[in-house]
């Protein structure tokens, strides 16, 4: 088992904290099938976007947790936080579009000091907001009022809980995280989250705790619902299974544990054309903490910006240039196209 971290890879000056070092490894000429070649099995020559439907905004890399698989390399030491000025650019851009869904992520998005202001401003535009909350932040000092704030604004909450037992969850997310997550879920349930009649949506994300693909979403959701109800009396709406992509800390884990080659081969052999055609970058625009635009959160972490003349910064946002754009791909994209597919909304095929 690899050791738990208390700081990001960046804080320790590790080479894999650098996006270029990650790209050197995953895109090395190792004889493995290239994603761009394999993608042609879909019957299409390139991955092309549709009209954006989701605005996914990473409002900072700061996090109260240091999960072993984090593709953001987030942690308490990260200082990259979206400013109010950049948030305003996001709001200006959003106001010019019909994009109905805003997906706020991080780090722990709640740790951005302007989080509440940002949410309130987006609500004025009458858009649906999802927040990727790690749960433990909701029971941390200074954040106790956040569950009610989220409920008052009808925010959909999406939270990682990689398993329904403490040992498995804590191995990935840190000692004591499961217990705090259960405490936060209890608070969320008490104010109506996860209960059908409340209209307050609470979804859970499963990530494999190691070098393997996720189980079938439907059957795992049944297991989660049964176990969380029987053991803790907790409810939630949907379970999303998400595949770990070979980048950042998960890449570090794959290399350290000697699983890298097998994992890449597994992803490639599990390539599913219908999953490849339904990847989330087709209808998502990802915005970095500094306002840079990307095809997805993973490209953002690999510092692979939009290409082919698309605008690079939220200040220059223009949907006309974003529809039907060629999406930037690489070997990491096999992660979203493997098996039943993977996206921020779970399986895609």
């Amino acid at each position, binding site marked *: 088992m690899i050791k738990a971290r208390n700081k990001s890879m960046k804080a320790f000056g590790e080479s894999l904290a650098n996006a270029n070092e990650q790209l050197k490894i995953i895109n090395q000429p190792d004889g493995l099938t290239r994603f761009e070649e394999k993608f042609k099995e879909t019957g299409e020559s390139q991955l092309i976007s549709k009209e954006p439907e989701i605005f996914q905004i990473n409002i900072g890399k700061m996090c109260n947790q240091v999960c072993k698989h984090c593709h953001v390399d987030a942690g308490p030491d990260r200082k990259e936080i979206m400013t109010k000025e950049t948030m305003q650019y996001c709001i200006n851009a959003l106001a010019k579009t019909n994009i109905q869904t805003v997906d706020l992520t991080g780090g722990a998005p709640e740790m951005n000091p302007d989080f509440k202001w940002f949410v309130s401003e987006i609500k004025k535009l009458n858009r649906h907001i999802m927040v990727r909350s790690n749960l433990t932040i909701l029971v941390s000092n200074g954040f106790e009022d956040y569950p009610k704030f989220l409920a008052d604004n009808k925010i959909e909450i999406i939270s990682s809980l990689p*398993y329904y*037992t403490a*040992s*498995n969850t804590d191995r990935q997310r840190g000692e004591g995280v499961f217990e705090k997550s259960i405490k936060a879920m209890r608070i969320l349930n008490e104010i109506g989250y996860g209960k059908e009649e409340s209209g307050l949506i609470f979804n859970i994300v499963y990530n*494999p705790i*190691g070098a*393997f*693909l*996720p*189980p*079938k979403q439907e*059957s*795992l959701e049944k*297991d989660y619902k049964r176990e969380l109800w029987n053991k803790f009396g907790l409810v939630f709406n949907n379970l999303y299974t998400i595949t770990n992509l070979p980048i950042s800390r998960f890449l570090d884990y794959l290399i350290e544990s000697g699983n890298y080659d097998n994992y890449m081969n597994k992803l490639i052999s599990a390539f599913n054309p219908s999953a490849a055609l339904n990847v989330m970058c087709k209808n998502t625009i990802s915005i970095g903490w500094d306002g840079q635009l990307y095809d997805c959160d993973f490209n953002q972490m690999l510092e692979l910006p939009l290409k082919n003349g698309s605008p690079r910064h939220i200040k220059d946002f223009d949907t006309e240039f974003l529809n039907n754009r060629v999406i930037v791909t690489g070997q990491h994209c096999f992660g979203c196209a493997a098996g039943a597919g993977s996206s921020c909304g779970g399986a895609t095929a």
Partner: protein
Amino acid sequence: METYYKPEDLPKFDTMKEGSPELWEKFSDWYGAVFAEGALSEREKTLIALAVAHAVQCPYCIDAYTQASLEKGSNLEQMTEAVHVACAIRGGASLVHGVQMKNVHAKLTM
């Protein structure tokens, strides 16, 4: 170190179709059907396979069905219990033969 069991041999399993493709096809179809969701879930069937893999002590099967169990959503506690079931039956199967020993012993001794 050279070994009879090599991890890289597992993906070569389907080379067994060479020489008898019809039998391989029948085996593959049947194998796939056995593990499909039925009265038992895929997860339960995979745990049974993991237990049997230990009973027959097949390193390929242990490797494959440990991964498969994780990919069906089982945890280490469930997988360990499955292995114990296999071991209990193996151990019990030996122990119950003690009755044969007792029978022979009873016949031969006063």
